[in-house]
């Protein structure tokens, strides 16, 4: 139980960073932290008490294994977040090109 609360605290740290920080790069890093917190929580949901890693090796017989499905979900989710981070970084570079600043309070040409 305490582990899930810690994961949630990590998620809230990422959310805080995204809302409060003004630098573009810090916003991108905060979105990464939020993603890692959720991935960690998904993997932790697959734990079974007293189980081993879910790989069948030569010479060992099958024992109780942890759930491998959340691990597959997390692999896919990591790649999706990689794509999102790459897109955000590309946008941040082009934004610096146009506005000459990384401060998000100054990037406000659209209003209303």
């Amino acid at each position, binding site marked *: 139980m305490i582990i899930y609360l810690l994961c949630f605290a990590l*998620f809230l740290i*990422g*959310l805080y960073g*995204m809302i409060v920080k003004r630098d*573009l790069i810090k*916003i991108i890093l905060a*979105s990464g932290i*939020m*993603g890692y*917190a*959720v*991935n960690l*929580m*998904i993997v932790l*949901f697959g734990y079974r008490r007293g189980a081993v890693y879910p790989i069948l090796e030569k010479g060992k017989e099958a024992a109780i294994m942890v759930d491998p*499905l*959340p691990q597959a*979900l997390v692999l*896919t*989710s990591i790649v*999706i*977040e990689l*794509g*999102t981070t790459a*897109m*955000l970084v590309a*946008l*941040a570079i*082009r*934004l610096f090109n*146009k*506005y000459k600043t990384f401060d998000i309070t100054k*990037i*406000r*040409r*659209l209003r*209303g």
Partner: protein
Amino acid sequence: MTLPIFIIIPLAAAFLISLVGRKKDFWGPLLAVAATVAVFVLSLITFFQLGAGIRVYEMGGWKLPYGIALVLDPFGAFMLIIVALISLTSLLFSVSYIRHLGSDWKYYALFMILVGGMNGVLITGDLFNLFVFTEIALFAAYGLVAYGGRAHEFEAAFKYAVMASVSSSLILLAIAVVYSATSTLTMAHISVAMSSVGPGLKIWIGALFLAGYGLKAAIMPFHAWLPDAHSSAPAPISSMLSGVLIKTLGVYVLVRIFYNILGAPQVFLTAFMILGTLSIVLGVILAIGQWDFKRLLAYSSISQVGYIFLGIGLNSTLGIAGALFHLLNHALFKSLLFYNAGAIEMGLGTRDLRKMGNITRLLPITAHSSMVASLAISGIPPFNGFFSKLLIIIAAVQAHQPVYALLAVVGSLLTLATFMKVQRYGIRGENPVKGLQARPGWGMQAAMIILAVLCILTSLLIVPGIKESVLDPVVAAIMNKTGYAAAVLGGR
């Protein structure tokens, strides 16, 4: 017929375009139009062949619950037609419009990925697969919003990307909670296992999904990205985003989750009604004060999607029929309005309503089709907007919710005022207009004429004979609620 064909054709076209489009310039538009026409024809055939049944396709031959299944029911088939139609007209429009932004194979490849992602969302039967296809469609959308290369487009795309990534994390959290409660990811099995989950957990799951997918659908507290993103994107992309993306990723997924998986608990239906009515009223109030044409259209999109949520929250056959009809209508007339905005922007070089003049003589097709679209969105008979809003208002009165019906009528009157403002300043304005900077091409004119004609023709969907064959199977599939699981699992 094999269901994956709806995902295979657009994605194959996207990668073929990126392979051969570098060499010769005409391959890009050619492959894109061919793929979209193929998807449109196939979606029409599938809808009329399906009738009221359901079709399940197991990917890779793995049986449920070990594998991923693709499930097609009448609601999904209906939305496939809408997506294919709007993407076909947007492609026709882009062939002439993109040339003045630099005709590029990258645009067509991203467009095909957007269409492929949306088709994937509509036909999947697995919860995590839904999330993956949502992200695929959103990546293409970020890239397309920022396509023109001007400063405000990057700012709009960055805001959209940041807000959508927060909502994606919330969705992933909701999927994790669902998996830990039910140990399966297939939507049919989840809806069977949901009956043994406590009500507190159901409210948690529902709230997380509502926050996550509600941001993609731009209902009221989560709407802040929409005006920037939809007004800065190029015109055909605005029509794709406003016409189909917020409906596929938002409305379709929320209906699937709340009706078919969670079984429509009353708490969330009331939330839909309240948020929908809030969107109607606040969206149209914010729209009237705008002087930027595309920003006005974006705020009015928020307002019209509010009607759809109001209809869905009513949980009655008439309400859902009205909501679905309004979904189709809004896709048609909002796309037409965005095409008009694009043609005017290409011709006059400005988006500010105060600077526009009388263009009825210079751009006749634009002027007349914008009159058709403005009358349709304001709900004037005999155009289609009147019938769909009437259905929703009557359903609200029948469900003993007169306050919501009154607010819906007020919203409709304010929409009329907004579009009379557009007509007076944008189309029949007072500034003298000397000439056009660029004439609209044949593709743009064809797209506008097709949609204007369809705006009138779809009023026929209210006629009882046609309504039974087109709208009623879709409504029955949604009202069936957890019967969806029994239909999918069949004898498995």
